């Protein structure tokens, strides 16, 4: 029996304008991205019979984080779908894509519109980046899993992941000078990406001089909230022959979560759930890390890209610091080019799907000045802390 990954492809990609404060609505951005992706896939809206997003409407984090829900997008485009889904639980943002793959693989849909939309920059307004509950809006009390962090003034993922990073620093001797190369590399690549939001040169000294947020994270360890939408079309594999560009295939997904799904009870703070998703990924393919040409690894915080590099086996566990030191190995001409569009640190926080979009551009040979020559296999990873998902994508 064929692995379900072989039954679908990414037939089209689309992306809206991206900006720090576009003052456009989430649905407006989503439609822009969706129409581009549908046309890129050689389809019309009448062909789209499935829709999926992460997380979509109604989430507790609010619409600027969650983006419009599938009912809103379906209605706006008057889609007639056989299958539809959204939600925040699953292997990170990639859950929406895996769900689409499962629907196509099971025969429930032929062409699924999958999107992720954020308006966090406009939502932030003129003020600084907010923490959860820090503005007094939860004065009546917080329940659920966040009762174990927020009441201790750990308001932000910057705090939660700083705890992971500090443990890594302690256990393996990782340094700020090493970690900083994730951010410096991202900025270097962003200079070659016209849609990236931060493109001015940044040196390691600039990185080290930035104000601290939550040790060991300084300002440039944290990604940049933006407005923007990314859409992809997941189609039946036999649609590949109908495209005017290479299809992008799914070689394998990593969706496992084996440690406790908790920020502070997870067994190994230095890896968190990336370990499980990455381990699972390699059980579903004969390819090995050395076969990967580009790595688009989630960098909501710099440290997450480091843990993904280790977890996916591009270097040994604990050796991520020395591996990225100096930045040569992760540069565009290095042994594993990392976050070729600038990641979320400099490209903008498209929240996961930006990495998928960039991987597709690289595999299709459409990445312009930042194209990695001959890229045929891309690793994509999303998520941080107890939330993780990974994929290997290939040029068909």
């Amino acid at each position, binding site marked *: 029996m064929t692995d379900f990954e072989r039954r679908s492809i990414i037939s089209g990609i689309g992306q809206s304008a991206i900006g720090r404060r576009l003052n456009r609505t989430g649905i407006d951005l989503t439609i822009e991205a969706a129409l581009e992706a549908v046309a890129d896939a050689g389809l019309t809206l009448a062909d789209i019979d499935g829709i999926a997003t992460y997380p979509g409407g109604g989430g507790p984090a609010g619409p600027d984080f969650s983006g419009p829900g599938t009912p809103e997008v379906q209605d706006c485009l008057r889609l007639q779908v056989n299958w539809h889904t959204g939600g925040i639980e699953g292997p990170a943002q990639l859950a929406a894509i895996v769900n689409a793959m499962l629907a196509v693989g099971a025969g429930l849909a032929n062409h699924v519109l999958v999107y992720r939309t954020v308006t966090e920059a406009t939502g932030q307004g003129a003020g600084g980046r907010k923490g959860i509950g820090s503005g007094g809006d939860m004065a009546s009390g917080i329940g659920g899993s966040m009762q174990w962090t927020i009441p201790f003034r750990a308001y932000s993922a910057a705090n939660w992941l700083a705890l992971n990073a500090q443990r890594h620093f302690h256990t393996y001797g990782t340094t700020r000078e090493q970690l900083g190369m994730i951010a410096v590399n991202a900025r270097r690549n962003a200079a070659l990406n016209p849609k990236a939001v931060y493109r001015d040169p940044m040196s390691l000294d600039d990185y080290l001089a930035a104000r601290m947020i*939550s040790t060991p994270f300084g300002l440039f360890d944290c990604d940049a909230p933006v407005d923007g939408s990314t859409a992809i079309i997941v189609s039946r594999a036999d649609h590949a022959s109908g495209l005017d560009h290479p299809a992008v295939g799914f070689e394998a997904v990593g969706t496992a979560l084996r440690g406790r799904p908790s920020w502070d009870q997870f067994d190994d703070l230095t890896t968190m759930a990336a370990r499980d998703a990455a381990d699972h990924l390699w059980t579903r393919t004969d390819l090995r890390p050395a076969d990967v040409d580009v790595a688009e690894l989630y960098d909501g915080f710099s440290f997450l890209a480091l843990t993904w590099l280790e977890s996916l086996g591009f270097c040994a566990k604990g050796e991520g610091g020395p591996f990225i030191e100096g930045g040569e190995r992760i540069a565009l001409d290095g042994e594993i080019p990392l976050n070729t569009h600038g990641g979320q640190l400099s490209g903008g926080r498209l929240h996961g799907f930006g990495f998928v979009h960039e991987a597709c551009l690289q595999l299709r040979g459409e990445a312009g000045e930042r194209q990695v020559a001959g890229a045929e296999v891309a690793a994509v990873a999303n998520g941080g802390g107890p939330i993780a998902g990974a994929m290997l994508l290939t040029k068909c």
Partner: protein
Amino acid sequence: MAEAPFRVPPALDETNEFFWTSGADGRLRFARCQGCGYYLHPLSPRCPRCGDSDVEPEPVSGRGVVHSFTINHQSWDGSPEPYVIAIVELDEQPGLRLTTNIIDVAPDDVAIDQEVEVAFEQRDTIFWPLFKPVAP
């Protein structure tokens, strides 16, 4: 003495009230399986180790070590003072941890593996289990 910082309180319900009010007698409590002695945090109705459903809050020593920490500098809640957020692992059981604050010490003097003990901060009926270094 600095003014007590802003804190979001927990929303109490039947599963967590024992934990958040435990400090009233100065002792920290966790749910514990009465069958095999395993501590469950957060509380769940079934012991994941032995399957027993007899789970009751029990006091612990309140001592542990700093498993990791971060010095927060970002003024999320309006307070300009840096403060320490930590994950403390309790002495009673490997992996039994709390995210908390380390108090009564300069932030720069906090270290991983440092021995700490619980120090409650009370507001209304809630007792926040914070930790301070064990006196040498």
